[in-house]
C-alpha cells in the first residue's frame, strides 16, 4: 500500500501505474504461498455464489442511486478502466481471501480468518481512500470472507469484489 501511495502521488487511487504495481505485489505474495488444489466444480459454484454476493454489495448503492437520480456516466474508457479494476480486485482477493485466509483458517478456524482478513482489507484501503471508509470496508471484508468460508473457494469473493467494483461505474 505504501508503494501504491508513493507511486500514485497526487493522482491517488486514479493512478493506473500504482494500481498495476499494487496488484503485482499482492499477486507475488500470494504466489509465494503454496496454492491449494480446489475442484473445478467448487470453483464454478463459488463464482455463482460470488454473483449473489455482488448483488448484495450493490443493493444499497443501487437503491440510493435510484432514489436520488444519480449520475449516469458515459461508457467512454470503461473497458480500460474495468481491466485495471478487475486486476486489482482479484489480486487483493488472491492474497487476502486466498493465501492469508487459508493460513489463518488452518491455525485458528474460519471465524478468526474472516476477522483477520477483514481488518486487513479495511486497513489496506485507508491510505488511499481515507479512514472514513474503514468501517464499511471491514464490513464488506466480513461479507467477502463469509462468501469464501461458505463456498470453500476464493473464486466467490473474487467475483463478488470485481463485479461490485465494476458496477460502481453505474452506481456513483
Amino acid at each position, binding site marked *: 500500500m505504501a508503494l501504491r*501511495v508513493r*507511486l*500514485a*502521488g*497526487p*493522482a*491517488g*487511487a*486514479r*493512478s*493506473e*501505474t*500504482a*494500481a*498495476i*504495481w499494487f*496488484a*503485482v505485489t499482492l*499477486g*507475488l505474495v500470494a*504466489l509465494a504461498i503454496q*496454492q491449494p*488444489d480446489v475442484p473445478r466444480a467448487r470453483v464454478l459454484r463459488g463464482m455463482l455464489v460470488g454473483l449473489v454476493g455482488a448483488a448484495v454489495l*450493490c443493493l*444499497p*448503492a443501487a437503491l*440510493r*442511486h435510484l432514489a*436520488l437520480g444519480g*449520475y449516469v*456516466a*458515459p461508457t*467512454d474508457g470503461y473497458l480500460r*478502466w474495468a481491466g*485495471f479494476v478487475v486486476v*486489482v480486485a482479484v489480486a*487483493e482477493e488472491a492474497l487476502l481471501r486466498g493465501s492469508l485466509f487459508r493460513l489463518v483458517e488452518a491455525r485458528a478456524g474460519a471465524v478468526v480468518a*474472516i476477522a483477520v482478513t477483514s481488518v486487513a482489507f479495511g486497513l489496506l*484501503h485507508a491510505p*488511499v*481512500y481515507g479512514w*472514513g*471508509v474503514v*468501517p*464499511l470496508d471491514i*464490513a*464488506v471484508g*466480513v*461479507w467477502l*470472507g*463469509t462468501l469464501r*468460508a*461458505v463456498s470453500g473457494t476464493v473464486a466467490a469473493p473474487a467475483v463478488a*469484489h470485481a463485479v*461490485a*467494483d465494476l458496477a*460502481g*461505474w453505474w*452506481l*456513483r
Partner: protein
Amino acid sequence: MVVAVNRPARLVTAALLLLAVGWSVAPRSALPLYDGIGFPDEPYRFVQRPTGAQETQPPTSARGSAAIKGGTSDPLVAASAEVAPQLSVFIPKGRLTAPAGAPKITVTGAPVAAVPTGRGQYLWSNVYDVRISPAGAALKTGGQQATITLRSASAQRPQPHIAYYANGRWVLMPTFAQGQDIYIAELTTFGKFAVLGGNPLLVTKVSSGKSGSSGGTTVGLFVGIGVGVVVVVLFALGWLRRARARAEAPAEEESAET
C-alpha cells in the same frame, strides 16, 4: 450435524447484519466498494486555472429545486454538470422551511473568484457560493443530514477539509473522503464553500484526464503490466502442474494395485 448445517446460515446472517451497520455508519457514498482505480473523471475545471493545469471548459453551476407540499419540502439535489460533479448538495425531505405561500425552494451553487486563505491553508477546489431562495427559506435543524459534496482538483494527501467562509476566515468542517478526490460534509448553513488542503495544490496535466495513465510514468505502467502477466503465467503453470499431478495420481494407484 445440526451445527454443520446451521453454521453457514449464521455466518451469512451475521455478515449481512454487519454489512448493514457498515452502510449506516459509512460516509454517504454511492460506491459499493472503494476500490480498483478511480473513475476516469474529466479534468478539474478551474475558475482561475493554475499554471500547469489542463485547459478546460469553464466550471458549471449547480441548481436544484424542491416542491413544498403540505408545509414539507421534497428532497433536493443540486449538482454541477462536470463528470464527476465538482459540487453537489443534497437536502433530505422535510429539512427546508419556506416562507408562507412559497411553492418551492431553490438551491444554487456557483463557482466564484478565489477567497484568500489563512496561513497553511490552500485551496484545492474552486470556491462555490451556495445560496437558497426565496428569501426566508432556510435549513431546519434535526432530521437526516443535509450534505455538501465537493470534488478536489487533486487526490493528494493528507486529506483536506471542506470549509465554509464566515466572518473573514475559513472554518474547517468535519469531512469524509468519498473515494479518492471527492469529499463530503454536513451542510448546516449556506455561503461560500471550498476544499482546503494543508499543503499547496499539486496540479499535473494528466491528474484526472480520461486519457491518462496518471500518477507514474507510461514506462512504469507497461513494466507493471509485463510483470503482472508473468505473475498470471506463474499462477497458471502452478495450476496446470497440480492438475497434471492430480490426473496422474489415480493412474499410479491403479498400477500399484495391479
